[in-house]
């Protein structure tokens, strides 16, 4: 290793105070500076931080955006999410590949790397890619070729953005081509059927400072009571009552506590947090500050997925302005009641970090492995401190509840699910985008709003949610019926649903942390059986096997990822079984249909140098 490199690495470590709990930040920066975290860098980091080198290697090999192999100065990451695949991923990838003269995973001589990546939160403008941190959207093969030619001229991804998106996407600190695609129910253009206007709670015009004033004018216990009265439940998908979570964290012994905002929006097909981070950051940060006041925390962390790095300069500016306005800092609002500040922790490409204990591991500078529970984060979370992790949308709802009071919030939704939900609608429809709907809204109404009434199946809640067929389109979006963290993917009449299920299994296989047996092995087993069925070699018993494996995963997996990773299979088997049944046939002549004689003897034939004939 050159002394230059060693110096670079030690400077980066020093930036973070040689603090091992900031190992993820250090590795991210080494990656950004050197194009890799290679063995030399790993040794240098380990020596500087006095860690075993294998600990550093363990972290580097966990995250998709870190690599031991050197990457080009420019990395193109084309999103391989199912929605992108439906809308031309193959052609775009082929065009990138051909124009660059390399296969995915390779780097050109002039320093451009081509990769594919899991959902980047742009399903409403797919196919999309990240070029370093810059999102490029609505791609086709022509655009892909143009992008490569442009890059070869200047190697500056920012210069790829010529037309800016709407709202704050056009802000000078964002300057992205991304569109918010916030859909209004009643606009003539969006909804020619002229239905009534939808409610606006989360997406109502930007927050006034009242929410925080009101919160700080009452006691923390009263704030928690207000949140409980609102019956607010976590918007990330699990639906745990927010007030109860706060109460547990407040009651946990300790003077140092932490609020974390989970902005690791990784569920394929979800992009509502992208829009909230772009258009309502003040509402998010106000919600975090209110949470901090309620539970007695002085520290806030916004855990932001690496895919949204293009928003960081803007978010840092918003935080700076809030500090200047006294909304964050040693004495929030000058009331002598609260000291609170927020830092941004960047992720590095790992879906599992959306799971709250994995997210905490990641904030601590570790692999994003989920932790054993108990202890729960409310007792011992980030660095062993009582920690409350809330979703972006939940915190926006908190601010709204403090602004308007819990009663007006409860006027929307139903008994089990109060308020509204932001839906990220994508796939085969005329108007993909963000819809704010009341809990209890029928799925068929959502399809109508989005212009996707001809869907043959809808994936509600992303891959970890459920696939439903038309016979369930009259069910309601709410925690106790069709629960969703926000992702609603529509699949039209031409789509092969088993290809969709297969893509979801590949996604989980790529994103499983690999810690526990049922998740690590079960996903692969499900994929192998499904591939047999899709190839027309399945038997009815294979469907039972998939159900059995799926149930084992659901019951025995250690975290939410593994417990839900079989859902694409289990829900489609339950709701759309005929799609499978059309492909399986009983075994004939006592020979298992899945047994491929030609494949089984292939290696033997190669070794023997001759071919046999099979029937």
């Amino acid at each position, binding site marked *: 290793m050159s002394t230059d490199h060693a110096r670079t690495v030690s400077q980066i470590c020093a930036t973070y105070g040689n603090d091992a709990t900031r190992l993820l930040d250090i590795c991210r920066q080494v990656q950004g500076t050197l194009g890799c975290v290679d*063995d030399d860098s790993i*040794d240098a980091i380990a020596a500087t931080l006095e860690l*075993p*080198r*294998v*600990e550093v*290697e*363990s972290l580097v*090999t*966990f995250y998709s955006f870190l690599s031991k192999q050197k990457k080009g100065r420019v990395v193109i990451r084309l999103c391989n999410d199912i929605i992108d695949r439906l809308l031309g991923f193959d052609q775009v990838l082929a065009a990138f590949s051909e124009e660059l003269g390399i296969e995915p995973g390779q780097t050109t001589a002039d320093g451009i790397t081509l990769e594919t990546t899991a959902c980047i939160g742009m399903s409403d403008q797919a196919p999309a890619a990240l070029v370093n941190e810059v999102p490029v959207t609505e791609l086709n093969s022509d655009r892909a070729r143009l992008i490569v030619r442009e890059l070869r001229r200047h190697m500056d991804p920012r210069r790829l953005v010529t037309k800016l998106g709407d709202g704050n996407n056009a802000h000078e600190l964002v300057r992205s081509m991304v569109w918010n695609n916030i859909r209004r129910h009643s606009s003539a253009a969006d909804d020619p059927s002229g239905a009534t206007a939808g409610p606006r709670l989360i997406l109502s015009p930007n927050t006034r400072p009242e929410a925080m004033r009101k919160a700080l004018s009452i006691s923390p216990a009263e704030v928690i009571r207000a949140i409980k009265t609102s019956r607010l439940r976590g918007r990330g998908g699990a639906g745990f009552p927010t007030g109860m979570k706060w109460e547990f964290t407040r009651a946990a012994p300790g003077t140092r506590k932490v609020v974390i905002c989970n902005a690791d929006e990784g569920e394929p097909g979800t992009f509502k947090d992208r829009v909230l981070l772009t258009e309502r950051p003040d509402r998010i940060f106000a919600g975090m500050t209110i949470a901090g006041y309620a539970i007695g925390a002085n520290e806030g962390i916004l855990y932001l997925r690496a895919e949204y790095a293009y928003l960081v300069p803007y978010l840092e500016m918003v935080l700076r302005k809030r500090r200047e306005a006294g909304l964050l800092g040693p004495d929030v609002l000058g009331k002598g009641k609260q000291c609170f500040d927020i830092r941004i922790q960047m992720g590095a490409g*790992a879906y599992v970090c959306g799971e709250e204990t994995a997210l905490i591991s990641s904030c601590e500078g570790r*692999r994003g492995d989920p932790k*054993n*529970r*108990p202890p729960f984060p409310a007792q011992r979370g980030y660095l062993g401190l009582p920690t409350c992790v809330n979703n972006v949308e939940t915190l926006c709802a908190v601010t709204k509840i403090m602004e308007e009071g819990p009663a007006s919030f409860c006027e929307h939704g139903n008994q089990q699910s109060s308020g509204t939900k932001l839906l990220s609608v994508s796939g085969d429809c005329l108007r993909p985008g963000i819809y704010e709907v009341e809990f209890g809204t029928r799925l068929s109404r959502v399809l109508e709003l989005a212009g996707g009434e001809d869907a043959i199946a809808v994936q509600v809640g992303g891959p970890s949610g459920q696939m439903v067929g038309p016979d369930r389109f009259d069910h309601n979006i709410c925690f106790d019926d069709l629960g969703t963290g926000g992702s609603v993917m529509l699949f039209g009449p031409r789509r092969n649903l088993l290809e969709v299920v297969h893509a979801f299994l590949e996604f989980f*296989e*790529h*994103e*499983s*942390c*690999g*810690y*526990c*047996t*049922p998740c*690590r*092995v*079960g996903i*692969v*087993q499900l994929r*192998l*059986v499904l591939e047999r069925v899709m190839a027309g070699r399945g038997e009815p018993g294979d469907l039972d*096997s998939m159900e*059995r*494996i799926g149930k*084992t995963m659901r*019951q*025995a*997996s*250690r975290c939410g990822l593994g417990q839900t990773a079989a859902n694409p299979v289990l829900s489609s088997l339950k709701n759309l079984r005929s799609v499978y049944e059309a492909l399986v046939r009983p075994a004939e002549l006592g020979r298992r249909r899945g047994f491929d004689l030609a494949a089984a003897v292939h290696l033997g034939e190669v070794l023997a140098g001759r071919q046999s004939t099979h029937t």
Partner: protein
Amino acid sequence: MTDKILFTIDGVELAAEPGQTIIEAADAAGIYIPRLCHQPGLNPFGSCRVCTVRCNGRPCSACTQPPAPGMVVENDVPDLQALRAELVEMLFVEGNHFCMFCEKSGRCELQALAYRFGILAPRLDYCWPQREVDMSHPDLLIDHNRCILCARCVRTSQQVDGKNVFQFIGRGTKKRLAVNSRASLAGTDAAAADAAVAACPVGALLKKRVGYAVPMGRRRFDKVPIGSPGDIAPGQEQ
């Protein structure tokens, strides 16, 4: 006596010491809960999930879950035994396990559990992964074909030997055991006398030149099945 935690496993009443997990309380009471990654004395890990029990109706791993007063734990019930058998089967098809010539045969906990659960041939699909064997160390070898990622060596090295020889790298299906050296096991401070070596429940981490020393019929699990009374918490190999 007042601070003991009273709960039941399959209707049997137990009194756990505060701080004990369900599996520790069960071991102390002579009740066997199948397990692979759990080893007495090490911090709980909870990766193999073979010790999955139902606590008040909810599945959880007995090695990480502390009992609560009045908790009803189900352990030796058909559906959980079937679930455990499937997990053991998953570990078999995930790696490359050839019991017939593995020198750990007869004293391998994975194999012993397969016998206990009556697994003859897996129903699942073999994955046949390409994995490496690290023979670099003068006294030890790592056969990754047989590693079940239980972290017993990782934890024993850290918590008993006071070293940091092992750790996992990679994610998901690419997750594998690695050593604290750029090259191989020879570059670490691992030694044949390390407790970490004896902690391996399978034939992944082995001492050289002592294989097959015990003849068939006299090997550990030849005599009694794993989890037999008097030997319910095998932990480290004798």
